[in-house]
């Protein structure tokens, strides 16, 4: 009699191992459906896990860059609206200067004009030191202090930095945070550095009786006010361009977030239809295998012998 037989133990071991395999597969598919993730751990698919990590990093940074861009847009808009107000203010000052330059306006009228000009000067100063929503000065460049200071004699000086610094809004893209006060309110007048404050101050002083010929002084001031208006117009244009740029970057960010999300979903998310089909398939196989096991395992000679 040979020793090679169909061992009962071997049959049970084999069947159990096969059913355990099926069960494990079902468990895995179920977990994929429940969590929505294809990968439970990195070793399930190392390359996909690495891709998911880099997507997660890119997403985290893109979210922050998006916030940065939104805040930058707000700061730029705040700066632009201040400068627009300044433009209106300078236009009013120009009207006043034209009035003062006309001979019919008497000394009293000039006095009144001087008074209004003085108020406009005050407003100009406070607008130049305007702050953003979070309380940072809009025109001080990289400095956190006031952009302009006024000494006892009324002379206004720019104390910010000449650069305003850039904010990264996308990989490799940084947009200047705003404009330093020196390029909004200061300009070059016939080869001499001057500023909107100086022009208005000089005119006010002249109309208040500081000049022997106020009409000539008012005419002279017109040139300075025009230069100041040119400068603020240029500033508004620059800020407007940057705001448009920021908006464009924000739109791109939105699209990139969608692309990233799509990519993450493609790499790491469970395809529900596929998973459910596979689950059904495994369940059928397990059921069939269980009932086959039950039948075959009852097929011993002992059952036949009564």
């Amino acid at each position, binding site marked *: 009699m040979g020793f090679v*037989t169909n061992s009962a133990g071997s049959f049970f*071991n084999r069947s159990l191992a096969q059913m355990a395999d099926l069960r494990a597969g079902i468990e895995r598919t179920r977990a994929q459906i429940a969590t929505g993730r294809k990968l439970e751990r*990195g*070793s399930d698919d190392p390359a996909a896990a690495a891709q998911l990590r880099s997507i997660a990093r890119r997403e985290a940074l893109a979210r922050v860059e998006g916030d940065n861009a939104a805040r930058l847009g707000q700061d730029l808009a705040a700066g632009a609206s201040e400068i627009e107000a300044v433009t209106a203010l300078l236009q009013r000052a120009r009207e006043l200067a034209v009035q003062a330059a006309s001979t019919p306006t008497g000394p009293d009228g000039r006095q009144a004009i001087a008074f209004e000009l003085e108020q406009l000067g005050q407003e100009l100063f406070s607008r130049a030191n305007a702050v953003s929503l979070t309380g*940072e000065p809009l025109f001080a460049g990289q400095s956190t202090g006031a952009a302009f200071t006024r000494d006892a004699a009324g002379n206004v000086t720019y104390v910010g930095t000449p650069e305003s*610094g850039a904010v990264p809004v996308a990989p490799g893209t940084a947009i200047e945070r705003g404009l330093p006060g020196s390029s909004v309110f200061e300009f070059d007048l016939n080869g001499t550095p001057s500023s909107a404050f100086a022009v208005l101050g000089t005119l006010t002083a002249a109309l208040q009786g500081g000049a022997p010929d106020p009409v000539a002084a008012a005419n002279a001031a017109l040139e300075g006010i025009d230069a100041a208006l040119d400068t603020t117009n240029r500033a508004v244009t620059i800020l407007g361009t940057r705001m448009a740029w920021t908006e464009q970057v924000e739109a791109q960010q939105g699209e990139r977030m969608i692309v990233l999300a799509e990519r993450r979903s493609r790499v790491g998310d469970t395809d529900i239809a596929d998973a459910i089909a596979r689950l059904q398939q495994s369940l059928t196989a397990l059921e069939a295998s269980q009932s086959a096991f039950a039948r075959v395992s009852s097929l011993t000679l002992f059952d036949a012998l009564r």
Partner: protein
Amino acid sequence: MPTAIFTIGRSGLSASRRSLELTAQNIANASNPDYSRRVLTQGELVMTGSIGTNSVDSLGGVKPGTIERAESALVQRQARDSASALAAAEAEFFALREAESALETSGVFTGIVDFEAALTRLQNNPTEPALRLSAVEAGRKMAGNFRIANGTLANARGLVQAEASAEALTVSERAAELAKINADLVSAREGTAGRAALLDARDKALRGLAEEFAITPTINANGTADVTLTGVPPVALVTGATAQNVSVTFAADGTASFSVGGTPFVPGGGAMAGRASALAEMADLQTSLDALASSAINLANTAQANGVGLDGNPGQPLFGGTGAGDINIVLASADGLATAPAGAPAGSRDVANLAALIASYAGPSGPATGADSLLLGLSSRVSALETRAEGLSVVAASAEAELLRETGVDLDDEAANLVRLQQAFEANSRVIQVAAELFDTILGLR
């Protein structure tokens, strides 16, 4: 010779009863994986007497022979070797998977990315206290995640080491047990049930040893087994009735070294070899993790030293410590984050220095890339080990099935034997009955 018929019937009865007992024993042990099925050999009993040329045969029935045990040294060896290889791969796989979970779930990578994101957000407005504070707290979280990773890795290492120590004791005990079996086998008589049971125990002990260490057993003619552990150098574990002690010691970096009876050796296979290589890889992981933490520390502190804080003073170190175990935030106040380059005045919103720090963190030698490649390397290794363990488990399962086919109990076979032996027993009883009737017939003659 009516008495001969009685003797023949009785011998038949006794032989079939003993065979029945053995069949019952086989059935009872059908689910015992260490049991090798037995059969009873039988021999015809004939007595021949001769005087001169006259010879007379006297039939004596059947003689129950020896108990034979289904044995197949080759298949046993195949099953042992494949189980040994599988144990090595599985031990390494489970240990490294533990390490993978430790590093992945501790969130080292996420911590680094969050710190990078907080720094990027700070660039928007470097003087805002909330943003500064959140950057420092993100750094604290990153440091905390490094420490968690360090702790969980140490935990995983500790588990493997504890397992190795416990299994070393088990191996020593199994070796002592095998030595005792060897001693008993020398005195056990051939063909007895006791000897068959001892041989079962011997094969079981060999299988147990093979799971932990790759072994080269030598089966001697008397059935005893001498065991040499395969490795560098090969060392004798069991020789006859003497067994050596196996011990394992761990170096400071967690790697294991083994010795048998005082002789150091490097195992060539089995779960212990798997654990040893897992421990060596964990030591490498620890080195990489420490290097990663130290690069995170150094990049941040170098950037701090190159710039000035909100108050215009030179930046103080952001992180303290030298590795993943002791990295922590040492900067006293968030105002001390050196966002502005050296020479900038107090309250500067210049972010040149902060941008340099972000660039160095995001660079190819920065911690984010380092953590990514560390995780990628580890998970690739775990994935490869899993594939290997799966392949080996198929091989081991088929070797095990082969072994069971050679030595296991087939219930159908045993059921058929039961019927056959029962009939034989009944037939022998009938023979005795016939003999009794013959006697009665003779005694009844008048």
